């Protein structure tokens, strides 16, 4: 069980440098700006944890509509951001930038508003990897995800991602 109190931004950045492997998002994530809601994704082979972050600078298009007088990051964007972090990890594991989507969202909770200037740190753990056989043409994976801003949890959810593989996987 990870001790969340250790994950101040300083410690998190430090763990990025010393223990985590970086994922090339251009190589493993189909979403590009303005629909990419993650800045960096790293993972640990050892304990299976995926860490990522996203700084909401304030010029993102959705702030204009949500809401004009009080910009707040929409909860669904926080979910998408967590999903993109997990998708990058899953695609790296699959060895390709596979097409896919969120198959299910369980127990998503939004605990505190995220506003322009906030940097959100996400952690996720794969909890079920389904249909991993090399002859399978698709991949499901279920993740437990938590997003924090400073010391506060802002969102959490269990997400199941579905990645479509149409040709044999090239293992990396």
């Amino acid at each position: 069980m990870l001790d969340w109190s250790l994950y101040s931004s300083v410690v998190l950045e430090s763990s990025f440098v010393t223990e985590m492997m970086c994922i090339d998002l251009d190589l493993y994530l189909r979403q590009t700006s303005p629909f990419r809601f993650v800045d960096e994704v790293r993972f640990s082979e050892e304990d299976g944890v995926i860490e990522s972050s996203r700084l909401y600078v304030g010029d993102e298009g959705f702030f204009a509509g949500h809401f004009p007088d009080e910009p707040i990051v929409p909860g669904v964007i926080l979910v998408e951001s967590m999903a993109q972090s997990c998708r990058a990890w899953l695609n790296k594991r699959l060895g390709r930038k596979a097409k896919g989507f969120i198959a299910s969202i369980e127990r998503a909770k939004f605990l505190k508003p995220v506003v322009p200037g906030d940097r959100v740190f996400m952690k996720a753990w794969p909890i079920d990897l389904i249909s991993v056989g090399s002859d399978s043409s698709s991949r499901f994976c279920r993740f437990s995800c938590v997003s924090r801003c400073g010391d506060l949890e802002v969102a959490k959810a269990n997400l199941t991602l579905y990645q479509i593989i149409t040709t044999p996987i090239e293992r990396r």
Partner: protein
Amino acid sequence: MQVSETASECYIEGLTQIVPFRFVDRVHFLNDSRAVTELSARAMPYRFVAPGQVDTYAILEFAAQSSGLILRGRKKGGGRGVITSLTGERKKCGEIELPLRLESRLVEERYSLFEFSFQVHAGLELVFVGSVGIFIRH
């Protein structure tokens, strides 16, 4: 009650979310416990969605905004609805295409916290089901 095109535009104009983050294009039915709405292809580029297909986040926001319409009477006096919880399950493995028709029902009410159950159809096909919790912040 069934909603005319003019009344539909009025309801949509009353949403606190505005373009480019507005995800309801037509209100077909609305009362204090049920809404039937439509998301069509209009202005989709401004919603960050590739033409002809819909991402899960757009469906979830469509559900949240449609459910929020049911609460319009309870928000009078400056209240604003914020999402507190979500669940959802995609029922179609292939791409989901517009237009989508959504039905949301109020299933639970506790103080300022409201729980809705929703289902989304593309044509006759059920493509997504879920629930959304909305808190009215005054």
